[in-house]
């Protein structure tokens, strides 16, 4: 059993009670809500005559369904308009702060939480979205939950939870040039599998994580869930504190030292005990591209696709389905695979540093004529900052479309969708069948810089070869 980890400390300080079922009642310090998984939850508490228990610990925005071209109301999509109307009605009725289009702070829920300083070390966080694990980058326990659990948090600010085991994942050494946080997280998933994290919280550490910016740590924690771990986190350090200083909801100067002392106290002890420890060498990580229908079906950009015989018997069915769906063959190179669509954005890679990296590659180049390419900033703040830096011009001059903030083609609940058999290079997090809006559509996940490279070449390319010419 784990001991002295951040997981143990934060869990213990938030346990309200052990329930008769054997589950624990856990206090949730921050509840983030969005339009898709909340309407039924609000209806359920209204039906029971309940209120939102802690409205000042609840924050709402809209991201999943919002169009990224014109956001004029009413939306062209009636269902999206209805959904938007529902959250507008609910936040008003229940007194929940709401960051909508007019706020200047609207955006993907996992981007605006950190951006506004809502996400702070030592918190428990819940949101009706599996990528809530993103917030673990700050040393929080952040849980993705379903709608009935959203109801519980609204009504009680608590969840009935089972404890997790803790796996420490060390990545030591130095990343090669052109290898990004996205490649680190895809590499970990490739090695441990999409089921490897079931029942675990992942604690990421080692020199690679020590050297990462907060935005890079968010990219890694974001995809903990793709490895089966509901929770992923990095211990808070000076990088965390520096990021938080001066943000909208961060502690003010007079409270700062006290806050930092608390944040330091929640980090895992030097002699913390883990249920499992895994070590990786940074030097082994290449820019990674997924070739299949689960995020662990991936290879280094210069590698050949694996033979079916390399997989265990019970995996063969999924592997064969992946090859059939993707129309790819074992032994072929992933590099050179033609693409139709390039998507830069999402809660994984829609932050300002992601756009900067992609813009470096796009600058002075042109998107291939055969590719539809677009950039969707993760939030209104990211968009404003990018425009201040002139990144929008770099992208549009190269032939990328420059859009409004939202989840967009990560899950294609808005008008941004693949058509038919189109294949995308995508900076998002899931290559599931049908994920990007066409049941026959295909997705290759990679870093934002690699997406930009693919957009320009019209096919999967090694971004390092383009960087040589910079």
């Amino acid at each position: 059993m784990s001991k002295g980890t951040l997981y143990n400390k934060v869990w213990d300080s938030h346990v309200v009670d052990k329930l008769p079922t054997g589950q624990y009642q856990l206090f949730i310090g921050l509840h983030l809500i969005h339009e898709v998984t909340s309407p039924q939850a609000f209806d359920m508490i209204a039906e029971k005559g309940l209120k939102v228990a802690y409205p000042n610990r609840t924050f709402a925005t809209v991201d999943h369904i919002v169009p990224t071209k014109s956001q004029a109301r009413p939306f062209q999509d009636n269902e999206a308009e209805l959904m938007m109307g529902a959250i507008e009605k609910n936040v008003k009725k229940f007194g929940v702060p709401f960051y909508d289009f007019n706020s200047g702070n609207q955006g993907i829920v996992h981007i605006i939480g950190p951006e506004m300083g809502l996400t702070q070390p030592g918190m428990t966080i819940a949101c009706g979205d599996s990528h809530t694990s993103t917030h673990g980058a700050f040393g929080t326990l952040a849980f993705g939950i379903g709608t009935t659990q959203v109801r519980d948090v609204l009504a009680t600010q608590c969840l009935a939870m089972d404890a997790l085991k803790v796996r420490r994942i060390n990545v030591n050494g130095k990343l090669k040039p052109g290898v990004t946080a996205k490649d680190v997280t895809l590499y970990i998933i490739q090695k441990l599998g999409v089921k490897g994290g079931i029942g675990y919280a992942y604690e990421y550490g080692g020199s690679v994580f020590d050297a990462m910016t907060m935005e890079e740590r968010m990219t890694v924690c974001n995809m903990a869930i793709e490895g089966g771990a509901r929770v992923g986190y990095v211990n808070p350090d000076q990088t965390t504190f520096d990021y938080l200083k001066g943000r909208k909801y961060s502690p003010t100067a007079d409270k700062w030292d006290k806050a930092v002392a608390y944040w330091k106290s929640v980090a895992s002890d030097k002699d913390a005990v883990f249920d499992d420890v895994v070590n990786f060498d940074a030097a082994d990580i290449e820019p990674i591209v997924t070739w299949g229908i689960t995020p662990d079906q991936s290879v280094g950009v210069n590698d050949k696709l694996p033979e079916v015989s390399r997989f265990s018997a019970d995996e063969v069915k999924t592997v064969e389905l992946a090859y059939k769906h993707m129309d790819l063959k074992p032994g072929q190179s992933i590099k050179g695979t033609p693409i139709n669509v390039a998507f830069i954005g999402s809660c994984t890679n829609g932050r300002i540093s992601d756009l900067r990296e992609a813009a470096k590659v796009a600058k002075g180049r042109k998107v291939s004529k055969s590719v539809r390419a677009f950039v969707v900033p993760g939030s209104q703040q990211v968009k404003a900052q990018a425009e201040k830096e002139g990144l929008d011009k770099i992208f549009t001059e190269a032939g990328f479309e420059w859009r409004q903030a939202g989840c967009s083609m990560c899950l294609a609940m808005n008008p941004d969708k693949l058509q038919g058999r189109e294949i995308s290079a995508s900076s998002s997090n899931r290559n599931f069948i049908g994920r990007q809006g066409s049941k026959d559509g295909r997705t290759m996940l990679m870093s934002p810089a690699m997406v930009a490279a693919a957009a320009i070449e019209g096919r999967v390319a090694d971004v390092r070869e383009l960087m040589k010419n910079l």
Partner: protein
Amino acid sequence: MNKVTQIEGKAVPVEGNDIDTDRIIPARYLKEITFTNMGNYPFYDERFDAEGKPKGHPFDLPQFQGAHLLFVNQNFGCGSSREHAPQSLMRWGVRAIIGESFAEIFAGNCTMLGIPTATVNHGEMMKLQTLVKEKPETKFMLDLEKKTLLSEGKEYLKFDIHESKRNALVNGTWDSTGLLLGNAGKTAEVAKKLPYVAGF
């Protein structure tokens, strides 16, 4: 609250590892603001062609109509936290799922709806899926108190289920709001002690 102790019925097999919740219910159906119609959509894109004609998915085969048990393989329900996935299965008729393993969030969502997620090993699941394909009329009974699956009235195998989930189902406390609300006083005390809640 209903106690969930025994679930009887025929079973339907859905084979394959890592069947994610996007496959169980495509995101476009998440735009509905109630769960009412979700029973029309489970596995929609795997069941129907472009003209809406069934492609022969187990959920459409006559021999599996009216099934209450679902037999699946590893990491079922991975990916998105959308509760629409278990809602769609439940509203189609699924009352219990037996699998080799389940994604964490999906299993939690199932419990919140009173649906047990029981686990067996790979060999046992292969046997179960073969049995139900060969004899789809087989009547099963999942007994949560004895952690036993019966086939035609006889013990067929023992299964595992997370103990707290089993307790919640068997004791009828799987709809947790009531339990949690009962501790409102204690909740306030815990909140008060957290430095960040107090504003440092």
